[in-house]
């Protein structure tokens, strides 16, 4: 019985993440349109897109790795979601959040990228491989400030568990005020994580014909879109858990995640695209300095 309830809870979590993530992407498109003085698509446009892609009558693949690439992607989006706490101090959606810690999640988030990279590599499309190499290079870039921010938090409160960090923030106040430098470094790293402008070098449609996904169509693309939206929600929830003390109910969670989501979105709206080495150097510049300062701050305090 307990197992059944937990399974249902996990499925509910994933469904909520899917719905919310898709909605955020739709709002993103709408806001982008308004900024460009357009009417823009309705906010539910992404659901329609996903439904259409999944109901395509045919879809071709170039081999088993490409066929399974969405499954790999889903491991890191759904799996990570299950291992982080969604709401604080409630029996809702606890999932597996006591069975993994921050360092584990850091690595678990990468599995999907690797599977996706291999799937895209198998298509034989040179654009896909170029996009992958850009994406991996960029990942090396933004992981440095991101890890620095996380390590700063871990050593400030002597825990690597997300649930513990949330509980501690209940007593001491939000970490984004307790260690603002770490929060800034993490936010700058988040710009790279979301891959909006100016860091959309992976799928740059103008140069690479949408990069890694250029050979994915139909159900593959639909599943990858869904995975992307779940992953977006996962990352936002992780940020809320880490820096805003988690949310006590779903409405607060939505408000907080959306506020965070506005940052990469609005930054992207007014930015052109970096070259890859510029992006890497960007992350190894001020974000890394901020991360180092955060480390020093948390050691000193």
């Amino acid at each position, binding site marked *: 019985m307990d197992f059944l309830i937990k399974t249902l809870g996990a499925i509910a979590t994933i469904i909520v993440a899917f719905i919310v993530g898709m909605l955020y992407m739709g709002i993103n498109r709408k806001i982008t349109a308004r900024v460009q003085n357009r009417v823009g698509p309705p906010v539910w446009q992404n659901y329609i897109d996903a439904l259409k892609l999944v109901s395509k*009558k*045919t*879809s*071709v*693949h*170039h*081999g*088993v*790795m490409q*066929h*399974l690439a*969405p*499954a*790999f992607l*889903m*491991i890191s989006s759904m*799996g990570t979601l*299950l*291992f982080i706490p969604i709401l604080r101090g409630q029996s809702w959606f606890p999932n*597996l959040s006591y*069975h*993994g*810690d921050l*360092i*584990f999640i850091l*690595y678990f988030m*990468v*599995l999907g*990228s*690797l599977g996706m*990279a*291999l799937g895209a*590599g198998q298509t*034989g*499309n*040179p654009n896909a*491989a170029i996009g*992958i*190499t850009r994406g*991996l*290079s960029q*990942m*090396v*870039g933004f992981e*440095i400030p991101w*890890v*620095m921010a996380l*390590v700063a938090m*871990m*050593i400030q409160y002597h825990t*690597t*568990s997300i649930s*513990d960090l949330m509980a501690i923030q209940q007593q001491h106040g939000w970490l984004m005020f307790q260690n603002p430098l770490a929060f800034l470094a993490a936010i700058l790293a988040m710009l790279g994580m979301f891959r909006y402008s100016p860091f959309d070098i992976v799928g740059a449609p103008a140069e690479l*014909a949408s990069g890694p996904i250029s*050979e994915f169509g139909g*159900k593959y693309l639909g*599943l990858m879109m869904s995975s992307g939206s779940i992953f977006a929600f996962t990352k936002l929830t992780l940020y809320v858990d880490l820096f805003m003390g988690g949310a006590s109910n779903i409405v607060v969670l939505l408000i907080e995640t959306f506020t965070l989501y506005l940052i990469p979105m609005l930054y992207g709206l007014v930015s052109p695209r970096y070259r*890859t*080495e510029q992006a890497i*150097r960007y992350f190894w510049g001020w974000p890394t300095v901020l991360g180092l300062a955060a480390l020093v701050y948390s050691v000193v305090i």
Partner: protein
Amino acid sequence: MNIIHITLGILLGGAILTYFANKISGVVRDLMFISTIVVAAALFFIKMTPDTVAVFNLGGITLSLGMNHLGLLFSIIILGLAVLAGFYSLPYMKGKDNLGFFYMNYLLSIFGMMGIVMSKDLVSFFIFWEIMTWSSYLIVVYNGNKANKIGIKYILFSALGAYSMLMAIVMVYSQLHSFSIADLSAGFTTMPASYQITIALLLITGFAVKAAMMPLHVWAPDAYSNAPMSYTAMFSGALSKMGVYGLVIVFVTMVSHLPQNFWVRETIAWLGAITAGMATIYAIFQDDAKKLLAYSSVAQLGYIITGVAIGTEISMIAALMLSIVHGMFKANFFMVVGAVERQAGTTDLTVLTGLIRKMPWTFFSALMSAIALAGIPPLVGYVGKWMLYESLISNGNYILVIVIFFASTAGFLYVFKILYSIFLGQEEPEFENVKEAPALMVIPMVIIALLLGFFGAFPGYLLKYIDNALVVMGYPVSQGKWWEMTTLFNAWGNKVSTDLIMYTTITVFVTIAIVLFYRWKNGRYVSTKDISLSGEMPKEDENYSFKLDFYKPFERAISPLLRYKISKYYNEFADGMEAFFDWTRRIYNGNAQTYAIYVITFLVILLLIANNIFTV
């Protein structure tokens, strides 16, 4: 006559017999070789108990051997890999010249390694160390003239290590009048402080050569990539671990007693981390699969060295865990590259392409090794890395953890590069007729790949042995404190449940795979030539796989770092030495009168010095 005699006897006898069996026929030699390994390993694992002791008397020198849990841990790596790589070796080496010699050295190096982990005194340790070094040197130069220079580099560095080790042994004897390792660890604190630090540093130098620590790693990439791959699996997987074994002993018995102000731990830990970082960066830009993996080995050994040098309980667990796991996945990776070399004829990453449909099982094992190498859950590679991070963070090495993390993340780059270049990309007519490797080569690889998954869910089966080894070294029992069968704990009591991770991964993967296969009939396989590239279609002789300048943007981003390459300094040093010796040659100008002047000068100087010395 106990199991130690028997194991070593079988290995040594088997080595000699294999050499002579080569004169009879190839089949006999192969049978002799593989039965030696299998029988030795089987007897060892069935009969060995951790407190067996044996004594050899060789013409006045007494060699005392024994087994403990630490040795047992390393013998598992050695013999386990030896069996798998041995079977792999048979089809891989088929048809090459001089195989009796190769197999003899192969067995001798196993013999040497087994001797090292069983040595209880420094003399036997040194003897077996030299046996291991020389047999591996002979295999490195096995591939012929091209390998000679590489072999010289290897043997020069090994000699450097051996001399410093020998010097340390002499110093130990001069102080303690005993070669025994037990006496050394007991009497180390009684030595003068200058002796302590010198001995420790000399021994660390000796072992760091084998463990390929920067700046002593220069031999490793060439030597690893030039030996036959069936041996490199052992070379990188097991033989380099002998350096780790030595470092573990040094750090546990000696460095922990040194005064804090020597910074030995910190220096070595930093050297290990820098090794990891720099070797990873070099690995990213290699265009040869063997070279790439060789640099990757150096990088992985860097993590292990860091873990050993930090020396807390959990970091030691992490280092030993990483040793075992690195032995598994790197041996597997070298076997994969060997299989590709045998079937496709090259290991050049710019030439190879699209082998996944030709060699699916090889790809499977390469994929599993890659995930383990990158330290991604749910495979076992991440258990060691997780513990290493936890130990570094809880121990206060914050900058170190960033460096290690950078190396680990940058590791994804070369992992993707090697997998993509060999197995993915567009198929090439040149590799049309490539077949899957023979079963004897595939089965060991798949076994290791499956083991990586199994231990990922149940790391306790490995940690149990590590725990026993740590207890021998004087650490408290770690089971229940740091780990349980399927759970890992860190210093602050946070945990990771490996089995749940594995189950979640499998559940999600299988669910989505079912969704994908449910609509299977609307999917269709198309060849890799059928790509959407502005409506253009590659012709038969055109291949659009992305090969050259693979990580050019990354290279541009880190170009300031790449300017410094250690081998450049060694080369400059070598050039300088050559010039120096060229100059000294002029002293011997062949004129008898000049020699006479030299002799007289020398005698005068000697007299002056002797006068001073003996009058004081």
